[in-house]
């Protein structure tokens, strides 16, 4: 028995060596490129669903801009098709109902107060003091406590593309949560590694807008992670502008320019992540945007932005009656026969920024 096993192993080894030699010989014979079909296959999107985890980690009225940041990103990913059930929105403080807010129940992301990003259809999953490092790590790693509502769980799988967006006050190697605790870059890296081991993502896009943001992705080792940060280690991320009628900074620079880009993206857009990584040159951002690509196998310029900021399946809005169970019923058959074709319609979302805004 053992003998046969050995021979099988030896055989395998032999085959392997032969294959290697052939491969090396192939390379030596100036065939430096991989087969095209293989290359293309590697660049293809491989996900089946999309999730987004959007976190505002800081509280207090003077951090209004962080809430505006996260709500604006929320609005954008929702517009591009990720349903509320697959967006985990964490907001550490209630700016809309802060007693200091001259516009009660509303949050704006620019001084024109063009749209209220805290509109009717915002589903905040973790609010106020629920936004803690513990809850965030539990959420990522899927170790939520018993009894946690389904809407508060990241139910992603091996086919999910996950967008993680963090904003708040950071330092070298940490991001402050609330006013009492921090998540370190090591904890973040460990959490993401666990996600990978538990097959909770296919590809992960990590986006962070804080001071010294690049320090947060330094410790990552997990594959298929693409990270972008608003500033390098040692740099501050700055806010974009003040609304003097509310009396706070409205939005951060990096998020502002990221949104400006996202606004032009439509669900079937050909825009790529590669373009998105360049939205905020130092000229406008003042801080240097940091990008980490070494863990990511695809070329960002070939990855559509909707791989992370949208939902995979193109959805078709039907204005006609569709019956999925009672197709044989007579009245339905008659209805379908008599129905008039309706006019085509288009859903238009209002732009977040108007053209005349603060150029």
């Amino acid at each position, binding site marked *: 028995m053992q003998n046969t096993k050995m021979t099988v192993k030896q055989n395998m080894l032999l085959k392997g060596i032969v294959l290697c030699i052939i491969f090396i010989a192939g390379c030596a014979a100036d065939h430096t490129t991989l087969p095209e079909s293989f290359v293309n296959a590697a660049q293809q999107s491989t996900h089946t669903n999309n999730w987004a985890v959007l976190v505002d980690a800081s509280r*207090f*009225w*003077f951090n209004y801009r962080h809430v505006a940041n996260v709500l604006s990103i929320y609005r954008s990913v929702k517009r591009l098709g990720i349903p509320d059930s697959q967006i985990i929105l964490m907001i550490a403080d209630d700016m809309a*109902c*802060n*007693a*200091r*807010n*001259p516009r*009660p129940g509303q949050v704006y992301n620019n001084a024109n107060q063009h749209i209220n990003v805290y509109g009717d259809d915002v589903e905040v999953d973790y609010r106020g003091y629920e936004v803690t490092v513990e809850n965030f790590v539990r959420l990522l790693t899927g170790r939520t406590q018993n009894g946690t509502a389904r809407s508060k769980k990241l139910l992603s799988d091996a086919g999910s593309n996950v967008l993680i967006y963090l904003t708040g006050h950071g330092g070298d190697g940490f991001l402050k949560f609330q006013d009492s605790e921090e998540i370190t870059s090591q904890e973040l890296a460990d959490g993401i590694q666990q996600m990978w081991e538990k097959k909770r993502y296919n590809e992960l896009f990590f986006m962070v807008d804080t001071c010294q943001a690049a320090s947060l992705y330094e410790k990552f080792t997990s594959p298929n992670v693409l990270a972008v940060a608003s500033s390098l280690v040692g740099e501050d991320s700055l806010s974009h502008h*003040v609304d*003097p*009628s*509310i*009396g*706070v*900074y409205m939005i951060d620079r990096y998020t502002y320019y990221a949104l400006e880009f996202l606004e032009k993206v439509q669900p079937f857009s050909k825009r790529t992540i590669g373009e998105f990584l360049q939205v905020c040159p130092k000229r406008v951002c003042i801080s240097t945007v940091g990008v980490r690509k070494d863990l990511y196998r695809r070329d960002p310029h070939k990855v559509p932005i909707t791989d992370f900021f949208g939902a995979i399946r193109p959805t078709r809005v039907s204005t006609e009656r569709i019956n999925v169970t009672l197709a044989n019923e007579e009245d339905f058959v008659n209805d379908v026969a008599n129905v008039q074709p309706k006019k085509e319609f288009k859903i238009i979302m209002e732009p977040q920024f108007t053209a005349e805004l603060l150029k």
Partner: protein
Amino acid sequence: MGLLSDPSLSTHNKLVDNLAKHVRKLCLALYTAGVVWFLCLAMPEFNHGTYLSENALSPGLVYPEIRIEANRLAVQLLEELQRERKEHQSTTPHAWIAAKFQEFGLETHTHNYTLRYPFGDGKEFHGKNIYGILRAPRIGSTEGIVFSAPYRVPSSVHVDITPSVPLLLAFADFARRKNYWAKDLIFLVTEQEQLGMQAWLEAYHDGDKESDSSDAYLRAGNLPARAGSLQAALNIEVQDLEVDYIDVKIEGLNGKLPNLDMFNLVQRIMAREGVVSGYKHTPRKKRRSHQSNYEQNLRQMLAMLSSQASGVPNGNHGLFHRYRIDALTITASKRVTNANVKSNPTSAAVPLLKAIEGIARSLNNLLERFHQSFFFYVIVNNDRYISIGDYMPALIALVACTFIKAYLTWSTLDVTVAATQSDPKSAGGKSTLAADTMKLSLPYGSVLIYLTFVLLIGYCGNVLPLQEYFSKLPLSAAPLTASILVGLNAIGFVLPFVVTLPPGGLELLHIGLLLIYGCAMIVIGLLNFSLGFFVAVISMPLIIALNTKASDKSMRNLTCVWTLLLNPLVIIYIIVLIMSFYQFPELTALQLLPRAASAAMDAATFALIDSVIYGNWLYFVVCTIFLPLWIISWTLVVGKRRDVEITKTKLKTN
């Protein structure tokens, strides 16, 4: 065996020998270093630029929304108030103020208080404050901000500040229309200067706690409504709606100051609205002087320290500090009519109103009390300050040599005592052994009793003037207090001639003086730097010169005179004399001396009243710390002579 009485340590060593040789030089060097360090603080290298460290304040991020209508309202209200004032020559038009508060939709209340005058033999004064609360519309009433304006009756001797109340009312009317208040705003009009404010604050914080207040001199009563814990307060004193410049007053009770952030906030917002504002600001004419930057800074510093030293607040804001509420007063000065400056009464106060609005909105943004910036600082310029870490070394250097001297005196104690006591012939080899036993047999008990008695004299200064049997004497307050103080000083003066301390007692007393003095100066300096520093500067040379072993007669006479000059009463008299000399330059010296004496008596009485009503501890410190320290010094100066004489006579008889 204790560390200090360990014979292996206390024997003569090199350090003590060297120290004893150079102690005078060392002390003088430290003293000079302290004074020089203090003078250096005025140089820009030694102080820092101010900055706002509280993020939450976000000053100037909002555009002011207060408009010219508010100014119109203020002008109209001022006219009404002026009419009211004609009928109320020496009373406050409470009804009018309350009616206006109610008209603007504030929750209006009145607060009654009674002052039982300590020397009036049961005489009582009554007062009434009016306040209106604007409740924060969308949050519980857990925090509040106070905007106050003192009302002065037309018969007051102080400068007229009638427009403060209309300005406060105009701002209240504006604020009531806004929905963004996160703290209750209290608009408060007080009367009788600081008394009304003190009564209101006491009633606000302790009103409901007091069960029996018959003993208190100020019966503050209770308030019908409150607005949570007060976070900050702004006191407004406006001489005229046409504002020339703003003087920001910060010195509070016992030299306490509001957080530096609060001062910076006011400065920042005033600058934004284009209002000329500053600390100890003076009219433009005086500002155009040819002083150097350094000289200006030094003057500013000394001005601040001298106004802090007495511990009397220079505005109603100062009483808030007692309750850990950061507060300051903005005093708007009247514009002197100038042909070049065209004034427009319809919009004159708009910048000031805008600034008040800006300050209010920043204070509204506070998440907790001011805590980020400094509470102990000296302002050298409107935008420069010295922190406690930079100025304390000056005081410590001044005082440091008391501890060195105390150590030295203790170390050389054995020798002196051995030399005076033991037979010179047998001293030789056994002196160390004799010294060890000597330290244990020193007259600790009698020195302790002496110290206690001296402290008791000081304590009497606090208690006696307020006793009922004294207040029934046919004497008014000032002579009564003064005669009691003079009496106590006389006891202190005579004490060393009556009481003879056993041998070694004077040395022990000297050590006690040095340690108590050093600790007292540092503690007082920490709480009220200016008081500690000024006292240390004038008294430290005496402490250095004081030497129980001195044989130089002229030196001893000098210390004797210097000690007499440093008597607390003499110092108070000299200060008052200098002040009245500058205030009434037309008086001759003979007229000035009695006048200063009566003024000094008044000053002592006011200090006593301040201490019982407002909690100012200057009088207490002078009586309980400075007077006993002086008596001890005096004992050391004159007591030594007797000691020497005794030994001399002993030697003669031997």
